[in-house]
C-alpha cells in the first residue's frame, strides 16, 4: 500500500501546473459575536465553529468555546474560504450559519496557493440569538395536497387540514386558493395561484428571513415571536411557468421566503378586530403541474388557535395527531 501511495503522489504531482504556489490553504480568522435581538452582547454562549478544508488531515479545525463578556469568540486556521458555526445558550433558540465572504486579496478570482491570508481578516459576524419565550401548541403541518379543480376558488380549512366541502371535510375556508393554468406542456405553460380569504380583515404578508447571499445565519425560530398587527394583504398571487417568451420563472423554491397570516378574523361594527387566529408559513408556497389534471400545492403552515399573535410553536405539542414524519414540521 505504501508503494501505491507513493506512486500515486508522483502521478498526482506530474499532473500539476508548474506555477509557483505556496503550501497549504490560506489562513482565515473570524470572530463571532452573539447578540440579543436588541443588539446587546450575550456572554457565555456556546459557539461551535469551524473553518472548512477539503483535507481530512488538516480539516479538523472546529473549535468549541464560550463567548466572552462582549459576546465574542474567535477562530483562526486554514480554509478554502468558508466558515461554519452554530451558537447555543439555554433559554435561546440555536442560531447557525455560514460565512462565505472570504476573498482573495489579489483579485476577484481565487487562485489557491497564491496568497497566505484571506480577506477580510478577522471579520466580526453578528449572530442574533432569539429568546425562547412562550412556545404554544399549534396546528402545524407540512401540507402536500392537490387543488381539487383548476380555475375555481376553493376553500381550505387549516384546522381540518383539508379542502372544504364538497372536496373534503373542511368546514371553514381559511385560505381560498384559485389555480389557473395556460398551456399544458413543459415547454410552454403558465400557472397563476391566487390566495384570497373569507373575511375582510384576514390576510397574509411575506417575511424574508435573509437575502439570498452566500453568508448568512438562521435562528431555529425563523420568524418573529409575534405576528405583526398590521400589514396583511387581502390577496396574494404567485405566477410561475416556462414559456418561450418569458423563459422559466418562479419554478424553484424560494428558501427564505416565509409568510405570516391572519384568518378567522372577527371584527366589531367599527372594523376593530375582536378575535383572529394568527399563523405562519415556513418557506415558500409551492404549486405547479404543467400537464397534470390538478395542480399540486405544498407549504408548511403553523396555526395558533389561542387567538394571540404568538408564533412560537412548541414542537412537542402539535395539535395534529397521526402525522407522518414527513408531515411533521421540525422547526419551532
Amino acid at each position: 500500500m505504501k508503494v501505491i501511495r507513493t506512486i500515486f503522489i508522483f502521478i498526482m504531482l506530474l499532473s500539476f501546473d508548474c506555477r509557483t504556489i505556496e503550501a497549504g490553504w490560506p489562513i482565515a480568522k473570524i470572530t463571532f459575536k452573539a447578540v440579543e435581538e436588541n443588539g446587546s452582547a450575550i456572554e457565555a454562549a456556546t459557539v461551535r465553529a469551524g473553518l472548512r478544508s477539503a483535507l481530512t488531515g488538516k480539516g479538523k479545525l472546529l473549535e468549541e468555546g464560550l463567548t466572552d463578556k462582549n459576546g465574542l469568540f474567535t477562530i483562526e486556521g486554514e480554509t478554502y474560504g468558508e466558515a461554519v458555526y452554530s451558537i447555543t445558550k439555554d433559554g435561546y433558540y440555536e442560531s447557525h450559519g455560514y460565512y462565505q465572504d472570504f476573498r482573495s486579496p489579489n483579485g476577484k478570482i481565487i487562485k489557491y496557493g497564491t496568497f497566505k491570508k484571506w480577506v477580510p481578516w478577522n471579520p466580526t459576524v453578528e449572530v442574533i440569538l432569539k429568546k425562547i419565550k412562550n412556545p404554544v401548541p399549534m396546528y402545524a403541518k407540512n401540507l402536500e395536497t392537490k387543488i381539487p379543480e383548476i380555475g375555481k376558488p376553493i376553500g381550505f380549512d387549516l384546522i381540518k387540514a383539508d379542502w372544504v366541502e364538497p372536496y373534503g371535510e373542511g368546514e371553514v375556508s381559511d385560505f381560498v386558493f384559485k389555480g389557473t393554468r395556460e398551456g399544458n406542456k413543459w415547454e410552454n405553460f403558465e400557472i397563476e395561484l391566487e390566495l384570497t380569504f373569507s373575511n375582510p380583515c384576514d390576510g397574509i404578508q411575506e417575511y424574508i428571513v435573509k437575502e439570498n447571499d452566500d453568508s448568512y445565519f438562521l435562528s431555529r425560530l425563523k420568524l418573529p415571536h409575534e405576528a405583526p398587527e398590521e400589514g396583511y394583504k387581502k390577496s396574494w398571487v404567485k405566477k410561475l411557468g416556462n414559456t418561450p417568451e418569458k423563459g422559466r420563472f418562479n419554478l424553484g423554491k424560494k428558501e427564505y421566503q416565509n409568510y405570516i397570516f391572519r384568518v378567522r378574523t372577527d371584527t366589531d361594527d367599527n372594523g376593530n378586530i375582536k378575535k383572529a387566529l394568527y399563523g405562519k408559513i415556513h418557506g415558500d408556497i409551492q404549486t405547479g403541474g404543467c400537464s397534470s389534471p390538478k395542480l399540486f400545492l405544498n407549504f408548511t403552515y403553523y396555526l395558533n388557535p389561542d387567538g394571540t399573535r404568538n408564533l412560537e410553536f412548541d414542537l412537542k405539542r402539535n395539535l395534529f395527531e397521526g402525522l407522518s414524519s414527513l408531515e411533521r414540521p421540525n422547526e419551532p
Partner: protein
Amino acid sequence: MSRKVDYWGLTGERSHSAIRAYQSKYSSWISQTKVEWIGPWERYFYDETAPSSYFFNYRQACFSDITSCTSLSCKYNGETKNSTVVSYQGGEILLPENKSSMTITGELTINYLFPEYVFDEKLEFPFFQAAQSMTIAGKCLKIEPLRYWLGVPSVGVGLGQTMSYQATFNYTRGGLFEVSHIPMFVVNKSQVHGDHWDNFQGTGQPHVTFTIGSFHHPFVYLYLDAPPCREEDKYIIGVNSDNDNQNTCEVFFNGKKVKEPVVDSEELSSVTDEGEITADDDLVPCHMNVSDAFEGGTFSLRKEGPVRVWLTPHKTKLLLDDNKPEITNLPLEGNGDFNVNDTLYIEGVETGEARLYLNVERNGKSESASIKMTLINVPLIPDYNHDRKVDKKDEEYASKLLTYCFWTNDDDDSGDTGGKDIPGEGFPDAESEFMSINSGVIDGTRDLVDWFPVFIDLKSTLTAIDASEYRFVLTSKSTNNFNMVFTDLKPGNAGDYLTVKKEADDLLKKYVTDFGELGVELPESFISAIKERGQGVILIEARKETDWPLQLKIFDEAGELIYVKELPIKISGVEKMFNRVDLISSLARGSLADEDIILAENTPHEYLQIDKDFVFIYGYSVNQQGGRGWLSENFKRMYWSGNLARYWGVTWLGYETKIGDLFTRNFHLNVLNALHTAPYLKELINRKINSRVILAAHSLGVMLSSKAVLDGANVEKYFMIDGAVAIEAFDGHAEYVIDMQHPDWEGYDDRLFSSEWHKLFTSQYNWEKKDARSSLTWRDFFSGVLEKTDVYNFYSSGEEVLAKHDYFRHPDMWDVSGIDKDDWWEVVLELLKGGNLYEGTWAWALQEKLKGRHKYDGWMGSPWGGWGLNLDDYSMISLDTDYLKSYLILYPDIDFEITPLPPEKADEEDEISNDELRKKPFFKKGGEKWDDLYVPESSKKPDKGSQSAKDNQFELLAEFFPARTLPVGANEVQKINQFYGKNKNFDMNEQMKNDNNDWPQERIISQWERDWRHNDIRVVSYLYVNKVFIEFVKIGVLNK
C-alpha cells in the same frame, strides 16, 4: 419442536407397585393416599379386622370427589357404627370434633388420574386399582405434601432392638424426598439413614435403620414424605401453536419460486422437508389404565375446554374436539378403531383451562376420573414484516411458526458513522473485542440494524401461573451463537431503537449477554416489566449462521422443564439474503449471463414477500469489496423500513483506476463504464427479473440507471439518490449556472464554449441528415426518462461531493488536494499514516470544470475539449518556433507565454465564424485522437465528424463536453415537479433527518455542521437517515 424432559410427579402406578410389594398384606393402605385430609390431624390405620376393615384415628376427615361408596362403616373410639353414609357422589365426611377415630369397612376402589411427563413428552395418567369399591376421582394432580406410609411389622422385635427397612421407589419428581417422620415407636431417629434425597430422581432405595423405642403396636410406621406436588391448576400443557411446518426459506427467480415451501396441513401436522409425515411433537400422549374389575364394561370420554384428543400422534384420527366433545359407552375392549388401552394424544388448541373426563361402567357401577390442564402459550414473536413494531400480523406469522430469517452481524460498524459495512471484514460486531471484558455493549448506532427484536409474549401466561415459581430461560441449541440485550421496549414500538435517538441511546448503555444452549434467564425485573408494563422485547444479534431455533424454556421450582416454545430461525450471512448481480463480468463478457446472478438463499416465507423487486445500484469509486458493504447495508436499511420486495444488489465497474482504498482518479472513465453497462442492467430488469421493479441508484449509479431506463428498462418507480448527473440531462433547458463555468472563459460568448458546440450541427447545418455532433451535449440526454418511469429525486443541499464550486474559485489541482509540490512530503506522510488525501469536496463540479484543463487524461479532468483553450488557433501571440511548440506540449496551460484571443475579439462572428468553429473550435481540440470530429479544413477531405461523434458519443460526453448546470444530487430538478404535477424532489438535508432533526454528534464536531453529505445514506447510521428509506418503501409501496 423438541422439548427436554418434563418429568415430574410421583408415578402413582410404580410407587404403588413398589410399596405394595412390601406391604402386600396391607395393600389397601394405598387408598388413603388419595384421600384428601384436611388437618389438623394425625392419622394412622391398621388392619384391625380383615383386609376390608380399617381403623382411622383422626379428628376430621374429608373425602373429596367421592363418586361412589358402598358398605362404609365408621368406628368411633372402638365402637363400630354403621355409617349413615353409604354412597357418596362427591362431598365430605365431617366427624364430630371430639371423635378421634373410626373404622371404614367396605371395599375401596380408588381411581385417579396421575399424569406423568416423560422424556418423550408423553403424559401418562394411568388409572389403577388401589382397592375395591370406593371411587375417589378427579383431583388427580392436587396432591398435598404426599405422605406414604409404610407399615412395617414389628412383631417379634424387642425393645431397643434395631430394625432395618429398605423400600424401593420410583420417584420421578425432583425435589426433596424425605423419610421425615417415624412415629413414637422409634426413639433413635439419628439412626435413620438416607432420610434426605435432595432433587432425587429416578429409582431410589431409601435405607432406613431404626431402633424400636417402645412397643405400642404391632407395626412400625414410616412416613416417607414426598414434597408437595404441583397444584392441579399448575399442570401445564403448551398450546400446540405451531404447525410443524418446516417452512424453509423460499427462492424466487424470474418471478417463480425455485424452491417451494413445505406446507403443513391441519390433518398432517408434521411434515418434514422430504414430505415425511412424523409425529407432532406438541401432542401429549396419555394412557388410561382401568381396573380389571371393569373388564367387560364400557367407558366414556369427554373433554371440556380448548383441547383436541387424537388417536394418532400425527393427527390422522381425531377423537374429540369442539364438534364432538364426547364419546360414550364404548366397550373397553374397543370397537375396532379404539379401545381403552390405546394411547390418547392431547393437543392444546388455545390458552385457558381444559379437562378430560373418563368414566368406566360395568354392571351399573361406574367410576370416573378426570385430569385438569392449564394451557399456556408463550410465543416468541419477531418483527416478521420488519415494520419496526410487533403487532397482530407478526402474531399471526408467529402462530404459523414461520421461519424468521436474519443475518449474522459480521460487519464492522462503530459509532454513528464508522465502518465500511463489508460482511466479514474487520472485527465482527457480534464478537466484540470488549465482549469478554465487560460483557460488551452494542457497537454504536450503526450496529443497531444488525439486531432484531423478539417479543416474548408472556403476559397472559403470567396471569395463569405464579412467575416466582418458575424460571424462564432463552436458549438456542447452537453454542453461544447469539448475543442479546433486555430492553424497555414494548411490542408496539419494538423497532424504536432504530429510529428514536433516546431509545437508541438507552440501548447503547446496556450490556450485551451471549447465550447458547445454556441459555440466559429472563431476570425478575424483565418479567415484572412484562406483567406490569406490557414490555417484553429483547434484542438479539447473531454471531454465526445457524438453523437452530430460539427456545424459551420454562422450568419449575424443582428445575424441571415444563414448557418449551420455539422460534424457527434461519441465520445466514446477509449476502445470502438478497440477489446479487455482477455487471462487471457482464460488461467484460459483453452479455448478462446466469452466472452473473447469485440468487438469495435465505429469504423469508412467501407471506413475507411481495411480488415486486427493488434494485439498488451504488455509485462511483466503490470497488467490489466496498460494493458488498453498500449493497448489504442498503439491504438492511430497506429491510428495517419494511421492504418486502425482493432485493437485488448490483455490482458494476464504477471504480476503474481506483488507487488502493484511497480514491478513484478517473471519474470520466467510470462515466463511460456506467453508460456501457446500461444494456446489461436493462436486460437484468426486463428479462431476468421481469416484474414490477423499483429502481434506486446512488451517485454515478444514477448515470447507469438513467441510461438503462432511457433505453427501455421497465421500471415502475425510479429513485435518484445524490445523483451525479447534471440537471440539464433531465431538463434540457435548465438555466446555466455561472459556477459551472471556468473563470478563464469569462467574457467569451457562449457560442465559443464546447458545451454549445453541438448547436453548430443542428438541422440548419445539415437538414438532410442528422449530424451526430448535434448530440454531443448533456442537455436532454436523459429527459426521456421522465416519460418512461416515475422519477423521484432525493438530493441533498448539504452535499460536498456534488457541492457547487463557486465561480470565484479558480479550479485546479489545488481544489482537489489542497496541496502542491512544495508540501507533497507532508501529504505523503499523511497518506502513509493512513489518512485520506481527499474527501471529494466539489469533485463533481471539478471534473466538469477541469475538462480540457489537464495535460494528461485520467485525473479529475481531461486534456481535451471542455474548458481548455485552443491556443493553437486562437491566441494573441503566434510564435511559430519549434522550441515553443515543444514547450507547449509539455505544459499546455502555460498562459504567460501565449494568451488566448481576448473576448472582445473572439466574440465577433466576423472574427471567428461558425464555419470556422466547426473546423477549429475555440476549445482545445484534443490532438490527433479527435481530428475526425471536426469539419476538415479542406473541402476535399471527407467529413467523418458525425460518425466519429456517433461512435464516441459516450466518451465525448464523459471527457470532452462539460455540463453547465448543477448536479441533480444536490439540487431540486424543477422540471420533475412540474412534469408530474407533484413534489418529487426531496431535500434529504432538510427533510429526511429523523424526527428530532438529530445528526451524529461526531459529525457535528468534525468540519461540517449537520450537512447530509454525499455518502451519508450509507455512512450515517439508520437512526438518523431512516426517513429516506421509509419514504422509498412508502412511495414504492414495498411493504404490502
